[in-house]
């Protein structure tokens, strides 16, 4: 048992170091973070341009603020799903190392936890940079003094738990889909972009999508963070209980699916099946 515990701690540490090296060894650290943070930042810029060019008389700056907070938080989700998916795809298709990882005593989910840990600093950097620059250049109306800081930090961190579970689920899908596992991250992120209330209000969606959105922890997570940051959004109570309930259910379901998919991949021989054309 002592060996197992040691493996988990060592596993996370060495996989985190490995993940860091793989993600950062191609350029200097500044360029790496620039590239990693560029997507949400660019989306925020694009939204801002769209707002300025296409908005009608009913639109207000708070619509843009609303969307930009969603983009910032979506940055965590995007970064995590990408890293989890690419960890599997990379080990299977490019490094051809996946069988060594699977057969190591450290469980795969422990390895992935460390290997993909870069999503946290990347997401945080996105969050801070995008909000700061947007607030300064577009006058979003964000006031540091009015932020409920303790709640914001607490719920930001609590939100990481369903994000990690989502990452595991994406990794599981990546294990069983040949060739298009790279698209899984984009697919998942895209769907969440649409239905998690990040840049689209859930009441604008068709009923079925609205119901799915309400069942996701991310929808409530993003709402809570908006609530803590902008007094303007404190008209309705923050959805704390919805967040906790949906998070628990979501984490249970996605983790179960991850193990099921891993088992399926083993049985069907897909684990080290490299297939590109």
């Amino acid at each position: 048992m002592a060996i197992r515990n040691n493996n988990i701690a060592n596993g996370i540490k060495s996989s985190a170091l490995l993940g860091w090296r793989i993600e950062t060894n191609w350029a200097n650290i500044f360029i790496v973070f620039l590239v990693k943070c560029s997507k949400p930042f660019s989306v925020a810029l694009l939204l801002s341009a769209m707002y300025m060019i296409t908005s009608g008389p009913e639109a207000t700056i708070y619509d843009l603020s609303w969307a930009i907070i969603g983009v910032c938080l979506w940055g965590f989700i995007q970064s995590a799903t990408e890293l989890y998916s690419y960890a599997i795809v990379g080990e299977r298709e490019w490094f051809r190392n996946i069988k060594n990882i699977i057969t190591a005593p450290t469980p795969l989910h422990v390895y992935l936890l460390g290997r993909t840990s870069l999503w946290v600093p990347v997401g945080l950097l996105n969050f801070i940079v995008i909000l700061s620059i947007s607030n300064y250049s577009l006058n979003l109306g964000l006031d540091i003094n009015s932020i409920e800081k303790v709640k914001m930090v607490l719920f930001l961190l609590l939100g990481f738990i369903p994000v990690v579970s989502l990452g595991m689920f994406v990794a599981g899908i990546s294990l069983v889909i040949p060739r298009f596992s790279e698209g899984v991250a984009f697919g998942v992120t895209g769907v969440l972009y649409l239905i998690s209330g990040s840049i689209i209000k859930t009441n604008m969606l068709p009923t079925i999508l609205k119901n799915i959105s309400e069942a996701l922890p991310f929808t409530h997570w993003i709402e809570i963070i908006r609530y803590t940051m902008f007094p303007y959004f404190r008209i309705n109570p923050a959805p704390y209980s919805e967040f906790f309930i949906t998070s628990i259910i979501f984490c249970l379901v996605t983790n179960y699916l991850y193990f099921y998919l891993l088992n399926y991949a083993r049985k069907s021989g897909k684990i080290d099946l490299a297939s590109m054309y």
Partner: protein
Amino acid sequence: MILSHAFRTIIARAYPRIIASFRHPSWFLFEVSLPLLSIVTFVYVLRLFDSPSQFESYAVIGGCMLPVWFNVVFAMALQLRWEKDSGNIEIFMTSPAQITWILLGMMVGGGFQTILMSGTVLFIATYMFEIKFLWSNWHQALIVFIPCVMSLYSIGMAMSSVFLKAGRAFEYYLGLTEEPVQFFTGSYFPIFSQNIVLAIFGSLIPLTLGIDGLRQVLVEGEYFTLLNWRYEALIMVIYWFIALKFAKFSLEWMEKLAREKGTLTLRWQ
């Protein structure tokens, strides 16, 4: 004899891509659903910003064309990287076939998939948002669409040689261009109506002209633009040939450089 060898090489290399469409039909689901998701997202963003309804038509057209850029450019540029990692590039280089022909084959095979995908996305998005396009102008749309796709593929071919030199870092830099391309090509809003400098800059990418041309011929109502779609199609044809020429030259130069430095056959470089 050279022409027949070129033709055979193109057919042979297009074959895996075409056959994959039928053997792994799951690609279709991904390649259609992801662009569709983007279109749906941005249409709702336009609604969030209370935008006029014709912007939704513009967004649908832009959303159908954007994946062409990403598929073509990324797939063409990155395919050679995968070929290198799997050892195929050694076999290509030691065969008497020119690497340009092999990339042309990828272009033909990929083009088949791209046209199928874009058409499907357009059809579904049109139905979803009840957009009325001027389908009677389908022949004009083809005159714009085909040179756009071909010129993009040629750019992808030229970029693949940059990959041979640049290696893995290039993949990341390419990723940086995604949103700027969305902006400068006016994928989700008309760029030409905003600023002439931006418009000219955006026109350096054939996709901008392609999207603008398609909006002119397919969308009802008034549409402000700087250039008639016929001229845009002509410019894209010129881009196509220039890019092909450049691709051939740069591929040969890169191969020579790679043979001198040894990076061609070293994996993970």
